[in-house]
């Protein structure tokens, strides 16, 4: 008898699935694939806040077409790239979207790359930071930060100006971590420094004291750190402080995540003096940024924006500006052509899209944690103008880059 219900269940499934969307001519649909839930939910929250803020400021009509957003959660099953790929396919096949944007994590973007090449749809990467992604499909454009660009700049500065001689590197053991480790080490050595050791820690790692001890025992005069968002920055920062590793004893260089608001609050004064190389902090001084920070504050109950928020904001900005240029034509080839070389004033300063690689070109700021109004805060003290991704420059020099920016 139970088989009756097996049958009915199957039918019900089929019925439930039968909701076909209608299509309209004068709208442009944008599919957002982000991790709205799961381990990286906060990343999605920030990116989406950026997207929402841009649309709030600039309206939902561009070149006479209405913009419609369809949000999809790629965090549904942890970090399952097969989900991200399916969502991309479904957005294109089922929802008939014209543009896709988002991508919290590198594997998500890599898994979906072929879908965009095959369907000729533009995909704007608002976070995933491994250098090589944009070379995997000619329809990718990126508004976040190719990690090696920032980390290479930081490595050079650390050896030349920062006074670091012997360094130890600590990165999370996954694509972006390894990417940034290589970039930092290469640049640091090229500038005359010595790398005396390093460690890569697991993505899920509740306790950092063993690694802090290792750093301490290495007798390095400086350390380079890359950790992704989430609980790791604060946990690592505290473990270092607990083992007596503070910028007073060991020079600490890091990517932007370690000095975002929440880890800074948790670390307190132990963070004073950490040097980071990154493209955005909410403390950046410009009118554009002041307005942006205010907007995000209102949207997220007083929280300050971070890199994820500004990348989401600029991702929408890129889409809007390109659509303006094509007069609302969202055809993949036309749109990506329009995106190439686009330049605008972002809350993080002047940015542009490299016509050769479709990756972002932006300033990398060197910042120090200082006490401002009695609280530790990131303060910019130097910058490098218009930094390009060194990995793709190298590919180009080796003759491994196609004219459309994909790798051979």
């Amino acid at each position: 008898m139970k088989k009756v219900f097996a049958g009915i269940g199957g039918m019900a499934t089929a019925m439930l699935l039968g909701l076909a969307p209608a299509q309209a001519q004068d709208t442009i649909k944008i599919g957002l694939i982000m991790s709205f839930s799961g381990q990286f939910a906060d990343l999605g929250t920030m990116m989406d806040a950026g997207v929402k803020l841009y649309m709030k400021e600039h309206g939902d009509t561009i070149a006479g077409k209405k913009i419609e957003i369809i949000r999809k959660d790629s965090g549904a099953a942890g970090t399952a790239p097969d989900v991200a790929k399916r969502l991309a396919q479904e957005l294109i096949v089922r929802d008939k979207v014209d543009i896709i944007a988002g991508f919290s994590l590198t594997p998500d973007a890599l898994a979906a790359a072929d879908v965009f090449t095959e369907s000729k749809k533009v995909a704007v990467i608002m976070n995933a930071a491994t250098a090589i992604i944009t070379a995997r499909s000619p329809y990718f454009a990126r508004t976040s930060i190719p990690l090696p660009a920032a980390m290479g700049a930081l490595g050079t500065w650390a050896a030349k100006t920062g006074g670091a001689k012997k360094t130890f590197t600590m990165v999370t053991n996954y694509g972006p971590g390894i990417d940034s480790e290589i970039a930092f080490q290469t640049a640091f050595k090229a500038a005359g420094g010595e790398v005396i050791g390093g460690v890569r820690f697991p993505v899920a790692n509740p306790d950092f004291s063993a690694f802090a001890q290792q750093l301490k025992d290495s007798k390095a005069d400086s350390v380079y750190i890359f950790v992704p968002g989430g609980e790791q920055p604060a946990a690592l920062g505290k473990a270092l402080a607990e083992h007596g590793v503070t910028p007073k004893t060991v020079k600490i260089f890091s990517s932007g995540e370690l000095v975002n608001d929440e880890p800074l609050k948790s670390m307190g004064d132990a963070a004073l003096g950490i040097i980071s190389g990154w493209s955005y902090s909410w403390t950046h001084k410009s009118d554009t940024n002041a307005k942006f920070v205010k907007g995000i504050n209102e949207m997220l109950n007083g929280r300050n924006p971070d890199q994820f928020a500004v990348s989401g904001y600029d991702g929408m900005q890129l889409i809007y500006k390109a659509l303006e240029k094509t007069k609302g034509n969202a055809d993949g080839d036309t749109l990506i052509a329009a995106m190439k070389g686009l330049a605008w004033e972002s809350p993080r300063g002047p940015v542009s899209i490299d016509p050769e690689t479709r990756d972002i070109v932006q300033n990398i700021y060197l910042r120090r944690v200082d006490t401002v109004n009695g609280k530790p805060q990131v303060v910019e003290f130097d910058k490098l103008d218009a930094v390009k991704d060194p990995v793709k420059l190298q590919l180009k020099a080796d003759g491994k880059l196609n004219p459309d920016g994909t790798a051979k």
Partner: protein
Amino acid sequence: MIARFVSLLFDGFAYGMLLFVLSVGLSVTLGMMNFVNLAHGAFAMVGGYVAIALMNRMGWPFLATLPVAFLAAALFSVVLERVLYRRLYRATDLDQSLLTIGIVFMSIAIAAYVFGTNQQPVQLPDYLRGRIVLGDFSFGVYRLFLIVSALIITGLMVIGLEYTRFGAQVRACVDNQRMARGLGLNVDYVFMMTFALGSGLAGLGGALAIEPMGLDPNFALKYLVYMLIVVAVGGLASIRGAFFTAGLLGVIDIFSKYYVPWIGGFILYLVMVGLLIWRPNGVFARR
């Protein structure tokens, strides 16, 4: 050399003690009531968020939030026990897992809705920060605090279970539920109180864990595996087992990550699988 060894031992043990406080309640519910409570992490999360809310929104001192975190998680668990868990005491393990996983999912969404998806920053009072230096040796103050707390909790639990009337009742219910009922013990009440106690400890652990482990809505799921490992290796319903196992696992984890970082991630799991094959009822099990 010795200083480094002691330092690693200390760090690992402190980490283990945190795991102990988080897991010991689960050991009790699983072993005593035979209930697969995968929502144990959610109770810990309740404690964590209560502590955070009191500190950051109402300005309470950290230490004062700890008992409230305990009570809040205990209360929350009693409500769930009365409303949902009771119905499934006689159900299969599978049904119990599904129910409690459902509760975990809901708790994650509720936490994200109420507190946002971000990491909750916590700033401890100065007397719990920094480290104590004794010659070559140095110890993190907070870790010391964790160890002391765990020792106090263990002491209280052992005394409570071995030397009080309630403890005797609990042991009676664990060893032979039917007989206990036959002797006129109110088994339901004992269960409820023990369950509340176990969940309260989870809540306390959640509050203590914010500093080293952070707190976000995913907390309910993130550390579930670690809790299960402690319970399985320590042996069900064994406080001593959970204590030693947690300490041991913490030390192994830290040592393997220090000396062999490239394979450090899976030594812990290897040890666990090995121990379970060696002694399936738990390394420190009484039976």
